[in-house]
C-alpha cells in the first residue's frame, strides 16, 4: 500500500514533534489564562487552581469525546488543530477585551479554558489512533506520552523566562496560535496519505486563513502595545491606546493598577489617595465654602472625586486636553470605580482643550474691546474661587508653557480676588531647581505662595504649591468640617505638617519660567535625566 510506504520513520519522528508542539502550546494557553486571571481578578492561588482544574477536566472531556470520532481521523485531527490555533491564539486578546466587564470576563475566561482543554484533550487520542497501525502499542504510548510531558516541561520553562518578559501576554498567545496553525497546515502534507483528496484544498485554505488571521493579530498587537513598552513598564498592560495627544497605558498587578501617560506614571491605585488628598484639600479647605472650582489637567477624575466631597461646590470645570483621557473610565471600569465616576457628576463640566488656549481666551489687552459684542458675549466670565492644577510634569515644551508667568497671569484673570489654587510641581527632592522654579514663577506672576510636600510611596517625595491671588494665605489650615466621607491620608495635624519642609527640600536658586526661555523644561530635563 502506498500509505504504508510513505509513513516511514522520518515523518513519524516529525509527528512526535507535533505532539511536543501541541503539548507546549496547550500548556502555554493554560498558563496565560491563569496569569491573566490572577492579574485582573487578583487572588492568584484561587485563579490558578481554578484554571488548572478546569483545564485538566476539559482534557478528560476531550479524550472522552474522541471515542465518537470514527471516520476520517486525520482530517478531524487537523480540524481540531486549527480550532486550537484559533481559540488559543485569540485567547489573550479576547480576554483583555472582555476585561472591561468583570462579570463577562469570568464567563469568557472559563469558557476559553474549557474549550482549549477539550480540543487539546481530543488531539492526543486521535493522534494515537492514527499511528496505531504503524507502531506497536507499547512503543506508541511511551513515545507519545514522553513527548507530551516533555512539551509541558518546555512550555513551563519558556513561559516565565521568555514569553512573559519578552513577548508579553498578547503576543505569546498569538504566536502559540500561529505555531498550532502551522502544525495543522504541515499535517495536511505529513498525513497526506491518510487524507482523502476531496476537500483537501479547502482544508489547506482554512489553515492558511487561520495563519493569516493570526499574523494580522500579531501586527495589530504591535500597534496596540510595543514590546519595549511592556518591557519598560515591567508589568502587564491591561489597556493601551494612542490618542492624537498621548499614549495612555494602564498596567495592573495584584496590588492595583497604574496609569501611564507617554510612559510617565500618573498614579498607582494603591496610594493615589495620598496624592489627590494632598493636591485638593489644602486649597479647598483654605476657601470658605468653595463654589466654583476649576481643574486643569486631572482627566482621570481622581482630583474631582475629592472636590465633590465639599457640599458647597456648585460647579467643577475640568479642562483636559485629551478626550481619550476624560472618557477613559468608560472603557476601563476599575477607573470608574476608583474615581467614583466623578466626571459623570452633574456638577462637572468637561472641556477638552489645551488649557493654555482655554485660559487665554478673551484675556489680555484686547479683552477691553469685547464690549461691542452681543448682550451675552460681553458678560464677564464667571470667576473661579478655587483652582486645582494637575498637569503632567514639565518634561516637554508644550507642557512647560503651562507653568509660565504668562500662563499664571492669564489664570489670575479667571480667579476671584480671594481665590486659592494648588499646583502639582514634580518632586522637590529629585528636581529641586524645577520645583523652586515653579514656586518663583508663581511668585513673580503675583501669587502669594506656600510650598508643601507629601510622601506618595510610588512617586516618592512629592511637591505642591498652595497659592492665592491677592490675599495672603492663612498660616494654620484645618480640613473643612463639611467634608463628606473620611479622608484616608489627611488629618488637621498632617495637613499642617505638609507645610514643614525638611532641610533637604530647602529653597534653591532658580530663574523664572517664561514662554520665551522655558528654563523649567531645561531644569527638569537635567534633574530627572540625571536620575536615569
Amino acid at each position, binding site marked *: 500500500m502506498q500509505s504504508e510506504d510513505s509513513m516511514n520513520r522520518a515523518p513519524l519522528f516529525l509527528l512526535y514533534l507535533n505532539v511536543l508542539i501541541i503539548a507546549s502550546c496547550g500548556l502555554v494557553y493554560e498558563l496565560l489564562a491563569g496569569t491573566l486571571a490572577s492579574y485582573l481578578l487578583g487572588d492568584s492561588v484561587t485563579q490558578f487552581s481554578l484554571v488548572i482544574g478546569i483545564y485538566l477536566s476539559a482534557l478528560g472531556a476531550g479524550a472522552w469525546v474522541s471515542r465518537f470520532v470514527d471516520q476520517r481521523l486525520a482530517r478531524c485531527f487537523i480540524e481540531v488543530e486549527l480550532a486550537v490555533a484559533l481559540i488559543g491564539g485569540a485567547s489573550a486578546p479576547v480576554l483583555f477585551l472582555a476585561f472591561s466587564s468583570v462579570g463577562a470576563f469570568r464567563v469568557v475566561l472559563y469558557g476559553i479554558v474549557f474549550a482549549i482543554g477539550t480540543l487539546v484533550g481530543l488531539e492526543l487520542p486521535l493522534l494515537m489512533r492514527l499511528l496505531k497501525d504503524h507502531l506497536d502499542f507499547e512503543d506508541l504510548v511511551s513515545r507519545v506520552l514522553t513527548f507530551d510531558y516533555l512539551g509541558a516541561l518546555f512550555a513551563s520553562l519558556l513561559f516565565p523566562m521568555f514569553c512573559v518578559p519578552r513577548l508579553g501576554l498578547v503576543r505569546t498567545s498569538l504566536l502559540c496560535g500561529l505555531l498550532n496553525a502551522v502544525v495543522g497546515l504541515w499535517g495536511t502534507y505529513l498525513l497526506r496519505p491518510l487524507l482523502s483528496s476531496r476537500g483537501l484544498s479547502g482544508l489547506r485554505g482554512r489553515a492558511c486563513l487561520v495563519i493569516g488571521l493570526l499574523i494580522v493579530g500579531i501586527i495589530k498587537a504591535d500597534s496596540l502595545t510595543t514590546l519595549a513598552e511592556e518591557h519598560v513598564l515591567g508589568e502587564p498592560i491591561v489597556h493601551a491606546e494612542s490618542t492624537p495627544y498621548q499614549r495612555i497605558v494602564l498596567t495592573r498587578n495584584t496590588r492595583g493598577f497604574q496609569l501611564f501617560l507617554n510612559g510617565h506614571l500618573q498614579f498607582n491605585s494603591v496610594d493615589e489617595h495620598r496624592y489627590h488628598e494632598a493636591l485638593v484639600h489644602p486649597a479647598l479647605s483654605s476657601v470658605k465654602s468653595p463654589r466654583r472650582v476649576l481643574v486643569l489637567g486631572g482627566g482621570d477624575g481622581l482630583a474631582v472625586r475629592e472636590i465633590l466631597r465639599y457640599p458647597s461646590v456648585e460647579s467643577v470645570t475640568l479642562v483636559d486636553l485629551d478626550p481619550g483621557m476624560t472618557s477613559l473610565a468608560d472603557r476601563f471600569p476599575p477607573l470608574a470605580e476608583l474615581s467614583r465616576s466623578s466626571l459623570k457628576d452633574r456638577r462637572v463640566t468637561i472641556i477638552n482643550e489645551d488649557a493654555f488656549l482655554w485660559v*487665554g481666551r478673551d484675556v*489680555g*489687552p484686547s479683552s477691553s474691546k469685547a464690549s461691542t459684542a452681543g448682550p451675552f458675549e460681553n458678560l464677564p466670565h464667571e470667576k473661579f474661587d478655587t483652582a486645582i492644577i494637575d498637569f503632567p510634569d514639565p518634561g516637554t515644551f*508644550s507642557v512647560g*508653557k503651562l507653568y509660565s508667568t*504668562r500662563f499664571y497671569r492669564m489664570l489670575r484673570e479667571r480667579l476671584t480676588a480671594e481665590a486659592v489654587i494648588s499646583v502639582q510641581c514634580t518632586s522637590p527632592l529629585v528636581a529641586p531647581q524645577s520645583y523652586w522654579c515653579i514656586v518663583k514663577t508663581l511668585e513673580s506672576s503675583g501669587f502669594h505662595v506656600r510650598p508643601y510636600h507629601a510622601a506618595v510611596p510610588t512617586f516618592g517625595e512629592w511637591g505642591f504649591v498652595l497659592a492665592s491671588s491677592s490675599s495672603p494665605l492663612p498660616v494654620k489650615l484645618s480640613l473643612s468640617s463639611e467634608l463628606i466621607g473620611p479622608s484616608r491620608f489627611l488629618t488637621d495635624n498632617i495637613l499642617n505638617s505638609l507645610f514643614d519642609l525638611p532641610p533637604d527640600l530647602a529653597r534653591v536658586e532658580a530663574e523664572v519660567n517664561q*514662554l*520665551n526661555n*522655558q528654563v523649567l*523644561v531645561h531644569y527638569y530635563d537635567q534633574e530627572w535625566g540625571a536620575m536615569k
Partner: protein
Amino acid sequence: MTLTRRELIVTLLGAPALFTSGCSASPRLPPAGELLGQSLEIGHRLRDGFRWPQPNADQWQDVGVVIVGGGVAGLSAAWRLQQNGCEDFVVLELESQPGGTSRSGRCELTPYPWGAHYLPVPLPHNHDLIRLLNEMGVVESVAEDGSPIIGEQFLCRDPDERVFVDGEWIEGLYPATGASEDDLAQLAAFRKEIDHWSAWRDAASRRAFSIPIRHATDDPEVLSLDKQSMAEWLRQHGWTSPRLHWLVDYSCRDDYGLTAEQTSAWAGVLYFAARLKEPGADHQPLMTWPAGNGRIVEHLASQAETRLKTGIAVTRIQSRQSRQRLGELRNDSPISGEIGYEVLAFNTASEQPIGFRAKSVIFAVPQFLAPRLIDGFAERTGRNAEQFEYGSWLVANVHLSRRPRESSFPLSWDNVIHDSRSLGYVVATHQSGNDHGPTVLTWYHPLCDDNAKAARQQLLKAKWSDLADVVLTDLERPHPEIRSLVTRLDVFRWGHAMIRPRPGFITSRQRREATQPDGRIHFANTDLSGIALFEEAFDHGLRAADEALASLTPNP
C-alpha cells in the same frame, strides 16, 4: 522657456532632491490650493507704458499728501503724519490688502504670514519704533537704559529654532552634529569678531553697524567691507569651517535672499553685529505674531482708517507746474499757483480712473518704479534706478490636518532644513501656544540666482501644481508623511521681493542719492537702505513724512 516639473525641482532645490523624492511621474498633490502673487497685469502695463484712461473732472480729489504704496514704509509715513496732526493725506495701495511684503493671510484656524514674520526687539536708541510697539500694547515697561520690556507673549516662544541635519532635528541653528574642535574654535573666533564690531564706535560715538543704518558710521574702514563678499570676508579671516560657512550663508539667504558669496560683507556683518546690545550679549530677542509682521501692518492700517485706499494702482505722477508751463492746465484748481502734483490712478475693482491733486507725494514703492511712474524723473534727477536689483521669493502656506510625527528635537517656531536651498518653515500656530492638531507651515525660498531677471521670469511662468510639488518635495525630507497631511497649499510668487545688497551697492552713489527728494516727491521704501528690513522701511517712512511736513509748512 517654461520649465518642466523635474527641471523646476532641480532649479529650486538642487539635483539631490530628485533622489529623495523619487520624483514620481504623478506626484500626490494637495487637495486644494491657489497660486497667488502681486498684480502682474498692472505691473506689466506700467512697465510697457500702457495708456491709462484719464479721470473725468468729477473723478478728481484734492489732498495734502498722497502716499503711494501701502507697505510698511507707506503706512509708517501715514502714522507719522497723523502723529504730527496731519490728517490730510491718502495712502494708495495697488493690492486689495495693505502690507506689501509684510502682508498676511488668514484661515479659520490662524492668521499666517505671506512675507515678513519677525522683528527683533529694538535697541534703546530706536525711540520711534519703541513708541509704535508701545502703542500696540507690546511694551510692558521701559528699563532704565531705555530698553523696552516686551510682553512675554510677543517674544518668540521657546523652542524658537531647530535644524534638520543628518536625519535628525537638533536645537538651534548651528549644525553642531559632528562638529570638530576646529569648527567650534572658528565659530568662537567669528563670534569674537562680531563682538568687536558691536563694540566699535566712531568719534561721534556712532556704531559701526546700526539698524536703521542711517545711524551707522560713515567711517571708510567700516564701509570698505562693502567692497567684498561675506564669503570672501570669512576666508580672509582664515575661516574655512563648512559649518560656519553654512551658518553665515543661511543667514544671508534668510535676511537678504542672497548667498554669502553674493552678499556684501558690510550687509553680512551688519546682520550679526547690529542686533547685539553689547559685546557678548545674545542677539536681541525676536518678537513674532501668528500673522508675522502682518500684525504690525494691521495696527498701522487701522490707524490710517479710511485714508488707506486699497485696490488703487498709481499709474502716473506729474508736476502741475510743468503741465501749466505746457499750457495743459487751466488755472481753476484751488491749489493752482502752488507747486503741486497730479497723481493719476486706476481703481482695479471698478476699473475706473481716479485722480488726486496733492501738494506733496510720498513715494513709498520700490525705486525701480520711479522712472516708470514719475514724469520726467530721470531727466530732472539724473537717476535711473538701474543699480537697484531685486530678488524673487517663493513663499507657501501649507495647511496640515495635524503635525507630522517625529521623535527628535520637537517642532519649533523656525524649522530649518540643512541640506536644502529653501529656508525651511515657520509654524503659524506656534506663538499662540497651540501645540496640537492642525496647523499652518509657512515655507520660504529665496531665488538666489545671479541673474535675478531670468529667475523671476521662470518663477512667474511656473504652474501651481509644479510649485506645490517643489514645496512638498522639500518638506518630505524631514517629514516623509507630509503629503498625506496637507489639506491645502497656497503658493505666493514674489517677483520684486527684496532689494539685493550685493558688494558695492550699499556704498554706491545711486543708492545714497535715491533718498533725495525730487521737488516735493519724497522717497520711502526699504530698498533705499539696500537691505529689506522692517526697521528700514519704517525709518524711511518716518523720514519721508517729516520731509513732507517740513516742505508743507511755510518757512518763516
